Each structure stands twice: as C-alpha cells, then as structure tokens.
C-alpha cells in the first residue's frame, strides 16, 4: 500500500525518494486510526472482572475507544445508564457490591459498574493494529483500501503546503466520503445489535 501511495505521488520509477517509505507508512497508520475513530468499525469482545466500581478501561484494554455493550458472563445485559439514573436508583451506588446490572461510561475510558462485581463480557470499539511494513493489510474492509491510499497522498502533501497541498484535498474528501459511507453502515448495524454507542454522523464527509 505504501508503494501505491508512492507511485501516485509520481515516484514510481525511482522508488521512495522525496516521500520516504517510513513517512508513508506513518501516514497510512494515521489514516487508519482516524478511520477507526470516525467509523468505530473495529470491535472486540473480551472478558473483564472489575476489581472496583470504577475502572480506567485503558489499563485493562490498551486498544480501547468506546464501550458498545457489556453483558454478564450469563449473558444478561448490563444496562448503559447515566449518572442521574444511578443516583435515582441508589444514591450511594458507588459503594454497592454484587453482580453488575448497570454501567456508566464517563470521559474517555472511565467505566463504573453497579453493583461492582461479577465476571463481565465487554464489547468495545477498538483501535487498529499498527501497520509496520509495506505488505501489511489495514484492518478495514477491502473496498475502502483505496480511500486509505487517498489519505496517504493527502497527508504526504501536507509538508508542501500552498497550491500543492490544495491539489490533495480531493483525496481527503474521498477518504471522508468513504468514512461517512462505512460509518453509516456501522451505525445502522450497531442500532440493530442494540449497542450503546455509534459513530459520529457525518454529512457530505464533514
């Protein structure tokens, strides 16, 4: 994929010269991270035993982005709630122990369960695996791979600025159109799955 970006930056015959391979791979990684943040298109389910009411989820799952669903090990839904709900149910809810029935997600990674305890199954939107080599395959549907190439071109031209950069904005627009398209799919899918979080709604790639 890095070679493809390089070729489209007109470095085909000579290979990587003005646009170094490592920089192109870094650009593709940036695009992939942004894609996952925009679409929440990668998810994973993992076991989790909360040791207290509150947990910084990044200390448990380093690839955490946002919670999608939490269930007990028996398969019962742990309901997503807000702080007002929790206070109404039990004003001292943070001190309760038992088997989790509800959870709150506050800030980037702070999750509280009520009552604290039990073995849970957490489905969350995750960050992608880092691309390290030209042949690594990005974790996004294959039909959108050209959009990542577009992002790579756009980012490589940021160094130049001015009109050279303006010419690359169409590639960024293409990437955003792809993210909007796939994000809509993920959002509808998440609604169908009764997930608690969906991706940001983009309109015309903005």
């Amino acid at each position, binding site marked *: 994929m890095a070679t493809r970006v390089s070729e489209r930056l007109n470095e085909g015959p000579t290979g990587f010269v003005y646009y*170094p391979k490592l*920089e192109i791979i*870094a650009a593709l990684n*940036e695009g992939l*991270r*942004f894609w*996952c*943040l*925009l679409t929440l298109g990668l998810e994973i389910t993992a076991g989790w035993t909360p040791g207290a*009411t*509150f947990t*910084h989820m*990044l200390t448990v799952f*380093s*690839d*955490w*982005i*946002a919670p999608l669903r939490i269930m007990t090990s028996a398969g019962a839904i742990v309901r997503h709630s807000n*702080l007002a709900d929790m*206070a109404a149910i039990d*004003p*001292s809810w*943070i*001190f309760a122990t038992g088997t989790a029935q509800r959870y709150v997600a*506050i*800030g*980037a*990674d*702070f999750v*509280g369960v009520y009552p604290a305890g039990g073995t849970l199954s957490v489905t969350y939107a995750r*960050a992608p695996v880092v691309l390290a080599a030209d042949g690594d395959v990005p974790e996004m549907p294959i039909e959108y791979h050209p959009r990542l190439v577009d992002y790579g071109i756009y*980012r490589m031209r*940021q*160094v130049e*600025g*001015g009109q050279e*950069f*303006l010419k690359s904005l169409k590639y960024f627009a293409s990437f955003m159109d792809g993210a909007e398209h796939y994000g809509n799919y993920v959002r509808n899918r998440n609604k169908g799955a009764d997930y608690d*979080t969906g991706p*940001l709604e983009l309109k015309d790639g*903005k």
Partner: protein
Amino acid sequence: MIDTADSVADILYRLGFQGGADIALTGTWVTVAELYQWADEAAKAIAYESGIFVTLDATITAVAATAAYNLPATHVFSLAVWLATVPLRLTAVRDLRALDATWTATSGLSTRCSFDAGSVGTITLYPNPTVGGAITQLAEELPADIAIGSSNVQLPTVLLDYFSYKMLAGARGKESDAAMPEMEAHFLERCALYEKIIEHLYGTGH
C-alpha cells in the same frame, strides 16, 4: 495510552525536519519544547471542553466542624460527591439560603455541598459536618502537564493525531519564516473535527 512523543516524531517530516537531531540544532524556527507546549495546551483545553479526563478523587478528608476545603489543583468539575458513603447534593448558595436563612451556622450530618460558597477552588459542606470522613468526588480533572520526559496522556491511541495536528497548527501558525497560515487553518479544522468526535463519544464539558 497516548505518548505525545510519538506525535513529535510523526510531524517532524511535515515541518521540514529530517529527524530529531535536525530540530534539536540551535536556532531552529521551532523547538521540541514548543511542540509539547501546544500538546499540553490542547490537553488542558479538552479537559474543560469535553470533560474527557474523569477520575474518582478521594484526596480530601473532611473533619468535624470544618465546612470548607480546598479542591485539588487539577479539579475541573465535580459530577457527584459523597462524604463517607452519604451522597451530597450539589447546591448553589442561593438555594442554600432559601433552604436555611442561617445556613452558615447550621451544624449536623452533611447532605449538600456547594462550589460557590467559598472562594474559587473550594468545596463547602452543608450543614457544617459534625462527623468527618473522606470526600469522594467523581470529578473531571486536568491531565498531568505534557512536556519533554512526561509525554503520556491517558487517552485512546486513536486520538494521538489530535495532538499531532495541534502541534502542527501551532508550529505553522507561529511567526517565523516557516509560517504557513493556510496550513494552520487546515490543521485547526482537523482539530475541530477531532473535538466533534470527542464530544460525541465522551461528552461535553461543564
């Protein structure tokens, strides 16, 4: 967990430097220390704008007959407060006065707290407590300062590039021969998009 040192490494090429040794030369138009300053300012700003850094703070211990306490220096906003295991309702002074005309002289088991009764950065308990205990706050806080040697931020890795674009915007907007106002504007637009996503996923600030 983000290491903003990765952001620095990621943007050197886009700022026209050949690497870490190049930007470390004496008299460069931008320094690594400045790049970290822009990242630090960005982290502080989103702490207020989106309340993204949330934690359970129990650093204050109330004692009998003392109503007012200094909040931690990193405090931004308290979402919920408990004294020992008793929930405290967040109450403005006008409401305390309506509730109890001589509220400052009332003693008993505290059931409310106010953030505008004392000076900025203090919490005041009502009634003046006759029994002390830990003040537990579910609170939005400022992250630790970002600088050379302390570059980690407790945020999902997909937000790394938010800090990269803040650094790029700062550098290209800085008064210098390498200033690129058109690129600064674009980088700030990119940051604004990240902030929209942050608000969507992690909530707005207070």
